[in-house]
């Protein structure tokens, strides 16, 4: 393992993602990526009494599916890195309680999938775990009641607001040599350019994504054209446009092969989701369904995934503070040959 100047970790023996699974809710199942999910649950309560238990159940179902697809059982997983948006990461905690896998709870807001993949890759790539799972979930109804308003409260949203995705993604990493691999990861620094609008989180997060991209490209010597897909999660439509602009100013042109998980998961016009999806279940579900599946069938060979998170709390925002944001980059490729410097 090698560590570069701006923090990028290059794996000398890259861990592979041996299985992935994504389960989503009803609205996400009506979106453009519907065909790629392992399951679409029509009941957003997941047969549970409370929304929090519903999210824990969603996480359990997704992780169990991923483990099963890998041909393993829960006992074969050495470590579980999982996170969600809830206070004290309760969805992850309750899922881990039932799964009985050694557990690390993570909070990186919508960047959690990239954070979990990074840590699981370090553990497996470094030889400290034979197999590790990276899981993230979010649920529209748990997020609304914690961050915004009661579900039946009637109000209007601004065009830049995003809809929290009901969904979960799970990936199983292993030391086995089988594509796709995680070649390197760039842990992000917290960036805050003074955005205070809770309804424009894409704008708050875009500079963090830009900062991490600059670090990644300067550490690896690669260029945006080295990738089939550069994917942020989840800036939404407004944030994605801002990233293209700020990246361009920083000398990185993303125009040809860039997309954002928040833009991909919904048809914002037909589904009236404004700027797109958000929540760690958004990038989790998009990466662990469409993206990794396209890599497995060889349609995409290399992906740079930049998970972006707005590390805000309603309490601190009410105290008029701005939103600190983070982005972690994960380079996923079907080949172990690293062409960078």
């Amino acid at each position: 393992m090698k560590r570069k100047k701006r923090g990028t970790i290059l794996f000398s023996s890259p861990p592979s993602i041996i299985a992935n699974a994504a389960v989503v809710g009803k609205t996400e199942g009506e979106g453009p990526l519907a065909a790629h999910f392992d399951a679409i649950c029509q009941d957003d309560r997941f047969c549970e009494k409370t929304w929090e238990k519903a999210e824990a159940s969603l996480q359990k179902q997704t992780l169990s599916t991923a483990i099963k697809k890998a041909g393993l059982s829960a006992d074969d997983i050495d470590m579980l890195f999982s996170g969600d948006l809830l206070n004290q990461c309760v969805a992850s905690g309750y899922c881990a309680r039932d799964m009985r896998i050694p557990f690390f709870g993570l909070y990186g807001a919508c960047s959690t999938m990239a954070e979990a993949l990074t840590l699981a890759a370090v553990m497996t790539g470094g030889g400290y775990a034979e197999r590790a799972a990276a899981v993230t979930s979010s649920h529209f109804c748990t997020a609304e009641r914690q961050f915004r308003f009661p579900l039946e409260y009637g109000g209007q949203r601004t065009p830049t607001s995003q809809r929290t995705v009901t969904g979960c993604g799970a990936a199983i990493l292993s030391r086995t040599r089988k594509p796709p691999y995680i070649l390197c990861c760039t842990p992000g620094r917290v960036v805050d350019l003074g955005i205070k609008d809770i309804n424009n989180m894409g704008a708050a997060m875009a500079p963090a994504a830009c900062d991490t991209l600059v670090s990644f490209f300067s550490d690896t010597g690669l260029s945006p054209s080295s990738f089939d897909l550069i994917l942020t999660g989840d800036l939404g439509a407004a944030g994605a446009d801002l990233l293209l602009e700020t990246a361009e100013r920083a000398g990185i042109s993303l125009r040809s092969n860039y997309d954002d998980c928040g833009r991909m998961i919904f048809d914002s016009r037909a589904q009236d989701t404004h700027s797109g999806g958000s929540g760690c279940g958004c990038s989790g579900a998009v990466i662990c369904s469409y993206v990794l599946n396209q890599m497995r069938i060889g349609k995409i060979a290399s992906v740079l995934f930049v998970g972006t998170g707005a590390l805000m709390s309603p309490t601190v925002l009410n105290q008029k503070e701005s939103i600190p944001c983070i982005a972690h980059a994960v380079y996923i490729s079907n080949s172990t040959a690293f062409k960078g410097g």
Partner: protein
Amino acid sequence: MQIGSADYQTLVKRFSKNSRTAKNTLNAFWTGGLICILGQALLDLFDSQKHLTHDEAVAAVTVVLVLLSALATGAGLYKPVAKFAGAGTLIPVTGFANAVVSAGLEFRSEGLVTGLGIKLFTIAGPVIVYGSAASFIYGVILWIIKTLA
């Protein structure tokens, strides 16, 4: 180079779509107006009842509108209407009822006391607090004017 905070704020303004104020205002105006017409019709109806005084009829209108709004909230009908109507449903007493009932429904899962009881006025609370405070201040002003006159 990383962009500065002031420059970035300008950029954000340029890239972020604004709400459609003209359309929203127009919709709020006519939907809010419709609710007021309903209120007026109810008032006329109650006023025509011999056993109700005018003050009682006014109170009865409020009770009926609050009840309708609460039922609509519980049935999941209020939210889609409010999304369209905006301030049109928010400003009349219907908005207050929705704020209380939606919080009641939402936080019932945390128990009658620790959930519903504590969170019932989580949105509507400020209206009660500042409404009471404002009426007190106006009362004092009115008292001073009457005493001096």
